[in-house]
């Protein structure tokens, strides 16, 4: 009987059921599409990072997408609760009548809860089918063209949302129905107002309102007094606005941070000098960031004695000083590629002993000591390097320790700072261990790289006073317009054995590549924006439908269509203003406090500008929507008998 009643009731209010199904399904479709796309772009989990990103960049991007997923999932729940609430409000009169003819509260509860659960169930099924179909279409269009996608439909979060929606309906809206079931028949009178509302205006409000035109006055009074509606509208607009603002500001943060990270990781205006084989290997290390067709670095030493650049160091130094490039702008390095292994480590863990109740501690082993990588290894002088990396730990005064790239640190270690890196000198048949002092954000070999003090590496490889690369920052030559001259003169000194390569084109390519990869984020943000615009429009239409009676009275009493439009517009504008202001606050909170440390935040004017832009856009949308809706409403009224319903 319960199921029968619920189905009949849903079918009886066909138009309302359709409208709720449309809104709920569209937001569920959005979340399903978004989840599947981000999952297929590997943007939700750091377990399987994309090949072109270093771990830090990847963490930032996944963090951004996770925030969006969380906000959209919250929006799904807010929309569902609001939608169920609207249905309960609509059925209040029927519930009252059923009570008056002797229906038990428990029966009422099961009738209407079944109805809401059915609606939630079908909303999810329809939304899921639409979302997965859209995902399939977008996947087919995008795959291999603009962004790399892997077919990996989401299962767990979608199931979680489905269960969550039924649970929320059961708990939140079920509680609401129970509450109504226990109330007296007269509850139906209160409608959207609180029973104990004090409608008297305070003198300040009175003063403010006197000066305002009637349509604005009415809009404010509507908002002040219909508090239940106000709460619903605000929660929806705030979350929707937060998704849009976080989405847009997040794109800028991710983009800026990404570019800033790789600028630091690479440097600017840097040229590298050495024998062609070493220079090419070094350049390829950076090129691999944006070009996955570059082969992996060859596991070799690059340390033949003929590669020693120290022989021409004096001549180069003299030439650098001719171009005002002092010793702070060039450095010697020893570059090689080797196989590294993680070490096991131990962490001290504190706990309370259950039997004695006293604090105790024990060591837990971390790392299994078997994971290996083939990585470039560089001997550098840490406190005079011309690349100014972003790093964690201690970098400037490393004496016998090591610095590792962020991807290597993330993939090879449980806790890099408590572990060592191990490599061997094949020639000498010796193994070396270096304690990890710093983790640098690095584009070299996509963050899989190792840096050691120059002296240490020279000693370990038994190559005292040997270096095979010189890095030079040629900014000063560029500033004085002597770029070509600088490179020509160096080439003359280098002869045929050595060569110089400007790394700037590779660096720029990396930056452009990172920017172009934001296209996926932009596609996702556009989809979100479109669905949110649709939801807000639907919501606006629903509100207008609910206020239809007041609008008809307003008109009957002599209010003009433009007065009505203005009143509705001001109401929407106030809601948007307050809702979006809360969204802005939430977005700023997320960006300032929750985004990972070191994320490059944009100027405050950017979120403010976006806030103003979104506000204006939605105001225009509200204006157009209201114009159309009021027109349709009056068209309906003119075609059918004017039914002005009771307030009581």
């Amino acid at each position, binding site marked *: 009987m319960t199921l029968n009643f619920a189905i009949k009731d849903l079918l009886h209010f066909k138009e309302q059921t359709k409208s709720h199904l449309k809104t709920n399904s569209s937001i569920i479709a959005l979340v399903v599409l978004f989840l599947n796309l981000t999952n297929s772009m590997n943007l939700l989990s750091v377990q399987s990072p994309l090949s072109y990103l270093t771990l830090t960049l990847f963490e930032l991007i996944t963090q951004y997408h996770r925030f969006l997923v969380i906000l959209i999932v919250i929006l799904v729940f807010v929309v569902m609760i609001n939608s169920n609430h609207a249905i309960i409000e609509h059925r209040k009169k029927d519930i009252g009548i059923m009570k008056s003819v002797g229906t038990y509260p428990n029966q009422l509860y099961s009738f209407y809860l079944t109805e809401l659960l059915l609606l939630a169930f079908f909303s999810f099924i329809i939304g899921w089918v639409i979302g997965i179909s859209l995902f399939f279409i977008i996947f087919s269009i995008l795959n291999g063209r603009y962004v790399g996608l892997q077919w990996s439909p989401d299962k767990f979060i979608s199931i979680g949302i489905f269960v969550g929606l039924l649970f929320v309906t059961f708990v939140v809206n079920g509680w609401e129905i129970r509450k109504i079931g226990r109330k007296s028949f007269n509850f139906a009178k209160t409608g959207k107002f609180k029973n104990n*509302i004090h409608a008297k205006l305070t003198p300040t409000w009175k003063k403010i309102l*006197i000066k305002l035109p*009637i349509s604005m006055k009415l809009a404010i009074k509507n908002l002040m007094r219909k508090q239940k509606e106000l709460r619903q509208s605000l929660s929806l607009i705030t979350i929707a606005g937060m998704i849009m603002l976080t989405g847009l500001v997040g794109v800028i943060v991710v983009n800026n941070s990404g570019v800033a990270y790789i600028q630091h990781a690479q440097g600017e205006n840097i040229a590298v000098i050495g024998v062609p084989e070493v220079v090419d290997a070094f350049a390829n290390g950076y090129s691999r960031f944006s070009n996955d067709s570059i082969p992996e670095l060859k596991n070799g030493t690059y340390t033949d004695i003929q590669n020693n650049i120290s022989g021409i160091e004096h001549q180069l130094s003299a030439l650098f000083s001719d171009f005002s490039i002092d010793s702070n702008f060039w450095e010697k390095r020893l570059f090689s590629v080797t196989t590294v292994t993680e070490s096991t480590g131990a962490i001290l863990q504190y706990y309370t002993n259950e039997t004695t109740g006293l604090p105790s501690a024990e060591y837990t082993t971390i790392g299994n000591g078997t994971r290996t990588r083939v990585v470039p290894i560089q001997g550098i002088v840490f406190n005079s390097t011309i690349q100014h990396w972003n790093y964690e730990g201690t970098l400037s005064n490393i004496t016998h320790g090591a610095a590792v790239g962020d991807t290597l640190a993330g993939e090879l270690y449980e806790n890099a700072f408590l572990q060592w890196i191990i490599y061997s000198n094949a020639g000498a048949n010796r193994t070396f261990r270096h304690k990890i002092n710093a983790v640098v954000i690095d584009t070299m070999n996509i963050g899989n790289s190792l840096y050691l003090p120059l002296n240490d590496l020279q000693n370990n490889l038994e190559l005292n006073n040997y270096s095979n690369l010189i890095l030079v920052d040629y900014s000063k030559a560029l500033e004085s317009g002597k770029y070509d001259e600088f490179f020509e003169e160096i080439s003359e000194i280098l002869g045929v054995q050595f060569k110089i390569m400007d790394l700037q084109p590779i660096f720029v390519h990396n930056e452009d590549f990172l920017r172009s990869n934001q296209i996926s984020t932009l596609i996702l943000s556009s989809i979100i924006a479109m669905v949110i615009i649709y939801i807000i429009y639907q919501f606006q239409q629903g509100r207008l439908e609910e206020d239809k009676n*007041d609008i008809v009275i307003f*008109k009957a*009493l002599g209010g*003009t269509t433009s*007065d009505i439009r203005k009143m509705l517009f001001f109401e929407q504008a106030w809601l948007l203003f307050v809702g979006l202001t809360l969204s802005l606050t939430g977005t700023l909170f997320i960006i300032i406090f929750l985004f990972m440390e070191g994320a490059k935040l944009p100027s405050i004017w950017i979120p403010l500008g976006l806030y103003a832009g979104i506000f204006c856009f939605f105001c225009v949308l509200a204006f157009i929507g209201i114009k159309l809706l009021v027109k349709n409403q009056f068209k309906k009224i003119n075609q059918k008998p004017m039914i002005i319903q009771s*307030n*009581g």
Partner: protein
Amino acid sequence: MKKTRKTRIEDYEEIIMSHRNIEEINLQPFIAAKELVKDFEIGDYIVRAVDHLSIEISEHEYVAIIGSSGAGKTSLLHILGGLEKSTKGENFISHINVSHMEQEMLATFRIFNVGIVFQNYNLISSLTALENIMFPLQLCQVKYEKCESRAKELLDMIGLSERAEHLPFQLSAGEQQRVAVARALANDPPIIIADEPTANLDKRNAEFIGNLFENFRTEGKTIIVATHDEKLIKHAHRILVMEEGKIIEDKRINEVSFKEENTEIEMEQE
């Protein structure tokens, strides 16, 4: 061409001026319907609510319309009050032909001429009793202080001063209807249109409303009321009986008193 918004009074004056000179206007009946037809589309059907109906109502006259449910009383009232337009025929309010008036002009015209009382009160749900009464005055851009004092005066008249700050849902049915009547009087319109104003009320409240309508009659308002309530019918000068969108009977029950009262009112006005 889009009309520039002026004050309601300027708009109203423009409406009057646009309808020829005052002498010519006065030649027209005060309220009239000529061959009125009103059709409604309901699904695939067309329902004729008013069927070639003609009627003239004099100034200061109190007319009660009776008839069974679906006879077309409400539709006729809405057309005579300028709330809706007829499908065919002509309609005069305050001597002016409003049949071809634009909706916006009609709204302005209505606010100065017609006070409407609905069966279901139809107070604006988010406004208090006081604000509901002030509302038509505010639409005419009357100063806030004047609106407030007039609304308080009307609240006093209906005996609800102490409920001024209550929202409609906090009032009883009788109280809501009293507020609706007060709202209809806010602009002191010459015509009061009421659609079954006592249908949802108990005896005491119905009597109260009946007495208010009697007062309106003595003040010289033109009243058209659709009702079955004896308390309202007994004060009427004339009873129209409707059936299937037509007037099947037009009874003048208090013709002598109407003429006497009319003379008194005209003398007072002079």
